[in-house]
């Protein structure tokens, strides 16, 4: 049973002002309806005017997705009645979108895959609703128009995706691409929203709406694939419908709305002039995108394709990597540390790289590379700093942390009395006569045991190679 998935991605463009008025888009943490004007409140008599930057950003996206930009495009009114609409219609693009027929290459389920993009168009975000009086029977609705008029682009794909996992991979790539283009801030809540069309080949298609995080997409689609497969197995017919994803429960539910057959009565927005921007699109220069950067990382820094893919899959991480000193960038150890350890620890805490002071991590890497802290110690410092950031929003410096936790690598020089490594080794030998005897009988594992004991006594601050050497010296010296 082949799964067929197509996506509609809504992405907020990171402009300073709204799509049709000069209100600031930076309303997060501000009180409701404090970023509004006659235009975005839909007051009678107000008129929209197109934000040039929003068009430019949309064109960047169109170009990155290899789209065609038609001679002329225009805005249209999508008419429907809902309190989140300030004017009783949404200004969007309908039959004459900004860009058409593009593609995005991804690492699909069966290797390299080209996903076709049907269209890219611009539209305004509606307001935000808060339903009051309980989820089951809301008594009234609260409306905040701060979000109304935020510029969105809608990217529509052909039904080219074949599994929820592939859909997630596509979205990751799309998100990275949008970030590389500098048109989108993925940290803003709700800045990327997805509707998915999903069907099992031969059956009707179901639209899943309201997927507000790109992480939710795989969950929603997996649920839907299972639901549809089970239904087909039981001999039921899949009905063509719109379902909503309930993020908290990880399920989709039928919208059971009466307005199944919506008639949006689109017509050209008479208050706006058309766009003729194909020449402008030609002039736009887009920055290096994830694929190109990945190739460069493999070539210039000698990284494995896997590491290069991970490190370039997020613009911020790639940028961080390139601030490291050149000799560090080409070291496999560094790549592993950033791609696996750093990202792993962030993931575990559900944190983003944007939350952490990158200068500190650069320092950890530099201290680690110079031998000032062991691998294990470096991880301990990283964890401590991340925990601090998560709790308080800031953290101490790596140097201070190493000092505080006593993670400074212990030297083995003899000046100023016996060094801590030698004392710990001596103690371990004294405390474990059985192991010493076993070692002398030629059992290799006995030495490992003793090394472990010494590491424990030095709390991981000794270099394993040093411990090995000191133990062998001591044990052979005793003969």
């Amino acid at each position, binding site marked *: 049973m082949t799964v067929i998935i197509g996506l509609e991605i809504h992405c907020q463009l990171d402009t300073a002002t709204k799509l049709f008025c000069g209100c600031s888009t930076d309303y997060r943490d501000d009180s409701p309806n404090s970023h509004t004007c*006659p235009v975005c409140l839909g*007051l*009678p*008599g107000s*008129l929209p*005017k197109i934000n040039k930057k929003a068009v430019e950003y949309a064109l960047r996206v169109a170009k990155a997705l290899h789209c065609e930009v038609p001679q002329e495009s225009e805005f249209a*009114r999508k008419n429907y009645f809902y309190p989140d609409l300030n004017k009783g219609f949404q200004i969007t693009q309908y039959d004459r979108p900004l860009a058409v027929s593009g593609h995005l290459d991804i690492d699909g389920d069966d290797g390299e895959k080209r996903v076709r993009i049907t269209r890219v168009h611009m539209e305004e975000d509606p307001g935000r609703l808060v339903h009051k009086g309980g989820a089951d029977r809301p008594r009234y609705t609260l409306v905040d128009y701060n979000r109304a008029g935020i510029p969105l682009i809608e990217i529509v794909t052909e039904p080219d995706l074949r599994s929820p996992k592939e859909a997630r991979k596509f979205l990751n790539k799309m998100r990275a691409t949008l970030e590389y283009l500098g048109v989108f801030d993925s940290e803003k809540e709700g800045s990327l929203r997805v509707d998915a069309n999903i069907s099992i080949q031969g059956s009707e298609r179901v639209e899943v709406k309201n997927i507000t995080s790109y992480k939710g997409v795989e969950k929603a689609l997996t649920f839907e694939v299972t639901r549809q497969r089970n239904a087909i197995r039981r001999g039921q017919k899949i009905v063509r419908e719109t379902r909503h994803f309930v993020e908290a429960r990880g399920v989709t539910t039928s919208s059971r709305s009466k307005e199944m057959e919506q008639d949006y009565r689109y*017509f050209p927005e*008479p*208050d706006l002039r058309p766009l003729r921007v194909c020449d402008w699109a030609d002039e736009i220069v887009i920055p290096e995108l994830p694929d190109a950067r990945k190739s460069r990382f493999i070539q210039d820094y000698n990284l494995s394709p896997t590491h290069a893919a991970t490190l370039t899959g997020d613009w911020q991480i790639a940028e961080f990597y390139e601030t490291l000193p050149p000799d560090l960038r080409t070291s496999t150890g560094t790549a592993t540390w950033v791609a696996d350890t750093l990202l792993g620890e962030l993931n575990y805490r559900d944190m983003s790289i944007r939350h952490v002071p990158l200068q500190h991590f650069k320092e950890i890497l530099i201290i680690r590379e110079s031998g000032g802290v062991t691998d294990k110690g470096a991880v301990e410092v990283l964890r401590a700093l991340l925990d601090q950031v998560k709790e308080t929003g800031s953290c101490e410096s790596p140097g201070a942390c190493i000092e505080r936790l006593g993670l400074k690598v212990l030297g083995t020089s003899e000046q100023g009395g016996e060094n801590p490594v030698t004392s710990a080794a001596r103690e371990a030998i004294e405390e474990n006569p059985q192991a010493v005897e076993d070692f002398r009988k030629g059992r290799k594992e006995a030495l490992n045991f003793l090394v472990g004991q010494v590491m424990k006594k030095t709390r991981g601050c000794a270099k394993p190679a040093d411990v090995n050497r000191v133990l062998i010296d001591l044990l052979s010296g005793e003969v």
Partner: protein
Amino acid sequence: MPGRSIEFHPDDRFFAFLRIIHNPQCGEGKLAGIPVAIKDNISTEGIETTCASRILAGYVPPYDATVVERIRREGAAIVGKTNMDEFGMGTTTENSAFGPTRNPADPSRVPGGSSGGSAAAIAGGLVPMALGTDTGGSIRCPAAFCGIVGLKPTYGRVSRYGLIAYANSLEQIGPMAGTVTDVNRLMGVIAGYDPRDSTSLDMPFRHEPDPDIRGVKIGVPEEFFGEGVDPRVASVVWDGISVLEKKGAEIITCRMPSMACALAAYYVTCTSEASSNLARFDGVRYGPAADSKKTWHESFQERRREGFGEEVRRRIMLGTFALSSGYYGKYYAKAQAARNNVRADFARLFREVDALAGPTMPTVAFRFGEKSDPLSMYLSDILTVPANLAGVPAISVPCGKVENLPVGLQITGCWMEDERVIDIAYAFEQGRSP
């Protein structure tokens, strides 16, 4: 700086005003101290603005329309908001939710519409000038019926920012006054580029009317005197046209075949746009509060039934139908094609002549209730809608009387040639004066 103010206590016996401001502020400038009335679909900061509809009762805009800003800046005193057909939908001002305005020329008759209040305020001598709006004749019709002058400017020459939309692609705010000179004067204040209106043209209006029209070619399309035009009106208008000829204009008869579909194209377009424009009055952000016991849709549907008059509801439903899936091609798309034919016809004619002349309205002012069925009311707009469909300027100037009721002469000009229609109207006004 504290401005001065004037006293305004008119005897509004024709019900021209919905709201009167008795002590309005005024200042210095081109309109210093002149009382100006504003049609009630133009937003005025701090002054209730209702479009003569119950659905907007109590709405006080937090901003001024661009034209109001400009009038205030030039020192005028805004003395009140004038009555109109609800949302501009009508030809008589009978469709006001607050009662009809009477025609000062004959109080048993309508003043025309939809800017009937503005026209009656001028004709009744309450103000020297006023702002009207013209979507399909709403400035020119009441100007003709009341015997005053009214200009519908070239689309884009006057900012629509703050005009409560009825049919965005057709309508313009325009000046109304007792004389061409005053129309010209008010136009000089309100016209000009406005960055807030994407359809605004960057074309300043600085003009002194010039009555010399020697050598000007004036076309008279046969269709302007077609079926439905009262022969008595036609005769008065022909007399007017001969005045222009005496002043040195060359009169040329011509044809305008696109007129056949113009009225249908107009009504499909304006109702379509209106069906969308009037969707925002849901009581959430302004207007009478929504009934919170009901659901959103129940409350919205009932609000629209109670809040809109019959004609407004009819036009919303007509427009909804014209845009609905399966009918868009038959109605909306065809109407746009017919509209292009009108544009093309004007473009062709204005290669041959400088302006067109004919009657503004097919008849004189109706008696109250005379036009009871909507279609016959719509048909009376036949001579004014072509200018709106094409976006060209047109002026109505008084040109005589039929049984003591005023008749208007309409001069239509080429795009951006508002100055020329003003000059021709001025020449006519001068030519008629003894």
